[in-house]
């Protein structure tokens, strides 16, 4: 099980708790996790990555295992601790605005 932590507004939108768990086939990558997340919560399509380009929205970041994965290739394997469910993938909104 992959664990994903969502920011508060997306939890509300998805009617989900702080952490969601997803079944993701190996290899576990950013792309495969986000695909599974959007499959389970279709209301999140377009909110984390652009509908068309699939680019990460600029004010969102991906963290895991104390690393910033925001700029990693989306098809690179995520850390083993994320793939095993020991650590969550964190989707974080940049602290900006009011």
């Amino acid at each position, binding site marked *: 099980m992959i664990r994903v932590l969502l*920011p*508060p*507004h*997306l939890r509300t*939108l998805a*009617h989900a708790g702080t952490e969601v768990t997803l079944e993701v086939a190996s290899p576990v990558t950013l792309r495969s996790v986000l695909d599974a997340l*959007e*499959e*389970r919560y*279709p*209301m*999140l*399509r*377009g*909110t*984390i990555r*652009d*509908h*068309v380009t699939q680019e990460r*929205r600029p*004010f*969102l970041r991906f963290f895991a295992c104390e690393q910033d994965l925001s700029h990693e290739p989306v098809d690179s394997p995520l850390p083993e601790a994320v793939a095993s469910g020991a650590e969550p993938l964190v989707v974080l*909104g*940049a602290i*900006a*605005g009011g």
Partner: protein
Amino acid sequence: MSKVRVLVGTRKGAFILTADGKREKWDVSGPHFAGWEMYHVKGSPADPNRLYASQSSGWFGQLIQRSDDGGKTWHQPGTPPGETVAPGPPKGMSNKFVYDVSAETGKPLTTHQFYDGTQHPWEFKRVWHLEPSLTDPDTVFAGVEDAALFRSTDGGENWKELSGLRGHGTGPMWQPGAGGMCLHTIILDPSNPERIFIAISAAGAFRTDDGGKSWTPINRGLYSKYIPNPTAEVGHCVHHVAMNPSRPGVLFMQKHWDVMRSDNAGDSWQKISGNLPTDFGFVIDVHTHEPETVYVVPIKSDAEHFVPDGKLRVFRSRTGGNEWEPLTKGLPQSNCYVNVLRDAMAVDSLDECGIYFGTSGGQVYASADAGDSWNPIVRDLPAVLSVEVQTLT
């Protein structure tokens, strides 16, 4: 007994204010979508319980919300909460606004003028205005930034651009105003379903007479000294346009500067600023039963976006322009420095026409006597972006 339902979009959520026909005691519901920018909420004239809302965020982008019960519950069209995802076409498409570049109907995605005069690609940012069809609750138009017009015919689930507007040919001369290059006004002609008026800041006003396939700029008579050719066909910063449905050929416009009027469906415009203290502003609206009675809220200038002299005054003309009277009873007349944005005024259709507007300071004011006197419905909402009203019988 008649009721009114006021739909308020703010910087941090939407609010629904309801009252009976006396419009004295109000129930306040909200915030709906707390923390999100709610640019516009509007009800369907064909089904008052059908509401559409534009929900957006700099972080998470654009969402469309729909209510089928007058705002009690909401869902993203196509993805009701709690529904098990079924096999079949993908859902969650209601927030997908993609410029049409199809061979059949689309135009090449051209560029528009950026702030510095260079050309810049069209990039979708948000929905400014939602205009439900006059006859079909499932049909709704969306005016978006960067400027384009979209339509949904399935209750907001899927959107398709009416690309004849963006591909009109003048697109490379359109440019963003301070708020972005937004299509903010959509007016459907009740006497002619093929005719739609729209306005873009800063391109100007356009009209289609064939249901959106082709468009004509309708800016003759506008004078904008801030563009190289002040009388250019396009490039004018139109802030809002209003029409009384009983006279669809007569339009009133609040331009960046200048209040204007057209008596020929936009073919030409005349200035009607008259004795206004300043003719900069954003909102303009028309009395429901008196098509020559017009309302504006003058703002000091484009450098100082607040009301002049610390006084919040609605100005009313009963002569279709030029002669304006200040309406002040119940409105703050000292130390007031709020703005009233372009979609933040509305009129109801009760016998005694009610007028409503919201401010950047979070107040929503109502007048149950056509503007003679005003009362705040609420005083402390987040900054108000839009106000609409439904008259319910």
